[in-house]
Each structure stands twice: as C-alpha cells, then as structure tokens.
C-alpha cells in the first residue's frame, strides 16, 4: 500500500477532500448541462426553420464552438473578458459560461438531427388522420424525437463531466487540484503518493461516467429495436 502511495488516500480527511473536489467538477458540469439542454432544444428547433439567415447564424455559432478546443474557449472567456470587458470572472463562473455555450451548440445539433430524422410519411399520416399542427407535434413527432434524443443527451452529460477536468487549467480547485495538494502535503512521508492519488482520481472519473454511459448505451439499444 505504502509503496504505491495509497496510504495517503485514507489519511485524515483526504478521501473526503478528494470527493469534494470531484463534487466541484460535477457541480459545474451539471449546471452547464441543465442550462444547455433547454437552450439547445430551442436552438435546435430554430435550426429546422426555413429562415435562411437564422439558420446561417445558428450554423456559424455551432461550427465556431465546435472547431475550437474547449481549452481555448476557456482561455478566451477567462482571460479575454477581463481584458475586453473589465470583468473579473472567477474560474467556476467562466467554466459554466463556456460549457453552457458549448453544450448548447452540441445539444442544438442533436435536436436538429433528431427532428430531421423523423420520416416525412409520419407528418403525412398525421395530417391524413386530421390532426392539427400542434397535435401532430405533440402526439406524433415529439415523442419519437425525444426517444431518439434521450440517449444522446445522456451521452452529452458524460462528455461534459470529462470536459470539466479542464477547469484545473484556469485555477479552479477541483479533484485533480485537490489530488495535487494532497500529494504535495505528503511529499515527505509518502513520496509515491502521485501514483495512488492520480489512479484514484482516474477511477473516480470512471465511476462517475461509466454508469451514465451504460445507461445511454442501453437506451440507445432499446431505441433501435
């Protein structure tokens, strides 16, 4: 145990501190997801509209956020707003802004994809049955789109959680940072702490993401059948 630095983990409140760090990361991702999903649904529906200008603007927004690494986006918002707008954002707020902007873009594309995937004859047979436009969307189109969307949005949550690890780089004290602090503090008594601590963080992320991925996979499979 000591050789691998796992002893540090169970000393004092170290493990709880680590979980607290993971909590910070999860909090940022869950707030961002909670904001991204409704905003993404809105933008996604707008993207299926016929208005060309609107579609072009939304497309540009999507592509711009997609092509930049999230790390660059974080830098732009964290350092850039201070310079350009004189704001002094703390790391957590900057992270939530970036991940919401990014998550909204990804979500809007998922929503658009789900909506256009519904075959035309579904619309036609709804009309043939005499349903109104509102009834058609409510009873026929939306339930099918949502079935398709649910596993994909759940997947977005795991992507968000993994991406949240980046906030370390703009100074947010999250799970990796806490691990670093613990390793530093125990440098003398446990020189191998880095192995055990980073392995633990690795597994903590896995434990947070794996069940969600599993659920998404199950739902996706049941959707396909």
């Amino acid at each position, binding site marked *: 145990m000591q050789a691998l630095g796992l002893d540090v983990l169970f000393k004092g409140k170290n493990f709880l501190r680590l979980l607290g760090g993971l909590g910070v990361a999860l909090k940022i991702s869950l707030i961002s997801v909670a904001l991204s999903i409704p905003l993404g649904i809105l933008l996604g529906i707008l993207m299926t509209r016929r208005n060309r200008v609107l579609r072009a603007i939304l497309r540009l927004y999507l592509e711009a956020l997609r092509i930049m690494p999230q*790390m660059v986006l974080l830098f732009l918002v964290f350092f850039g707003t201070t*310079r350009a707008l004189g704001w002094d954002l703390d790391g957590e707020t900057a992270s939530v802004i970036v991940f919401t902007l990014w998550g909204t873009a990804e979500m809007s594309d998922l929503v658009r994809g789900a909506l256009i995937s519904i075959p035309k004859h579904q619309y036609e047979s709804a009309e043939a049955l005499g349903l109104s436009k509102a009834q058609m969307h409510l009873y026929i189109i939306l339930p099918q789109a949502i079935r398709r969307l649910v596993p994909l949005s759940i997947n977005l949550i795991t992507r968000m959680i993994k991406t949240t690890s980046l906030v370390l780089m703009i100074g947010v004290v999250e799970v990796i940072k806490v691990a670093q602090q613990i390793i530093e503090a125990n440098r003398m008594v446990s020189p191998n702490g880095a192995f055990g601590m980073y392995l633990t963080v690795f597994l903590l992320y896995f434990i947070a993401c794996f069940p969600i991925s599993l659920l998404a996979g199950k739902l996706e499979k049941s959707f396909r059948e």
Partner: protein
Amino acid sequence: MNAAVLQEYLPLYGKAALLTIRLGILGVLLSILTGLFCAAVQYLKIPLLKTIVRVYIELSRNTPLLIQLFFIYYGLPKIGIRTDPAVCGVAGLTFLGGSYMAEAFRSGLESIPPIQEESALSLGMTRIQAAVHVILPQALSVSVPAFVANVIFLLKETSVFSAVSLMDLMFTAKDLIGLYYDTTEALFLLVVFYLLMLLPVSILGSIIEKKVRYAGFGT
C-alpha cells in the same frame, strides 16, 4: 492590438503549433492502429483478449485525457515507468484515441448485414477472403464519418498537453499572458493558430465524407 507584439510572438506560436501537429499526427496514427487491433479482436470474438479490449475501451472512454496524462506523467514514474513529456503526450492521446477509433471501426463492421458474409461464403470464399474483399471495404467506408470526427476530436484534445509541460499553443499563450499581460494578442494568435490547424482538417474531412457518400455503395 499591437502589430509589433504580434510579429514578435509569431515565431513562438509557429514553433508551438509544429509541436502540436507532430505529436497530434503521431497520436492519431497510433490510435488508428490501436483501434483496428481492438476492432479486429472484437469482430473475431477472441476470448480473453475480447474482455481486455472491452475493459480498456470503457476505461478510456469514461475518463478525461487530462487525468490520463497526469497518471502517465506523474503517477507511472513511481512504479518505475518514466516518460518524457512528448512520449507521454503521444501515449495519452493513443490511450484515448484507440478506443474512439475502435468504436468507429466496430460500428462499421456491425453495420454490414450478415447476408454479405454468407453470400461470399456460399460462393466458396474463405472467411478471410470474405473479410478482405467483401466486409472490410464496406465497413471502412461506413466508418469514415466517425473516423473523421475522431481525428478532429483528437487534434483538439492535444490542447491539454501543456498540463505535462509540453510547450504547445496553450502553454505559449498562458506563458505570454502571465509574463507580459499582452492578453489580446496572445489570445488572438491562439485562436488563429488553432483555426489554421483545424479548419483544413475539418474541410478535408467533409469533402472525404461527401465523396464516400456519393461515390458510395449504399443500396
């Protein structure tokens, strides 16, 4: 924005971009090899190896690259496996990318209906001949969109390399912001250089995708 500052920083960014491109390409190539190997193991259902591959894929896909890099760079030396930053970056990218590529190839293979192999077999082909002439060409073309998306994803992921003290674009930008407070110029060049690297790949990718779709085989 100050043109003189931009000019002064340009070579630093150029050097950083080259490092990212070099490691990125190497990581992507190794990811493809890893992915092909894993997909083959899963397709042929090789016992034991199949389980190991499954575990690897889940571990790799459900953890961030950043912690994978920290573990390789700071954790592994404690048990005697020491890597320099560049090797660590490529190893991390391959660990991450291998599973993404494996999934792309696997879904390509799974999308080919069994009747394709059966009709090849019924014409007297061996399983190997059926795989080479009938299954693989179709499966690979089906995986192209996912493959292209993975390449862009992996190139973007290189942006965390600075965490293991690789002097890439992020490292350079952060350095310049911290040292000289030329935030605007530093961020401007950061965006420009990432666009220069990623836009061509993205455009090329969508061209290839279209080619495959239209020259395509789809029935």
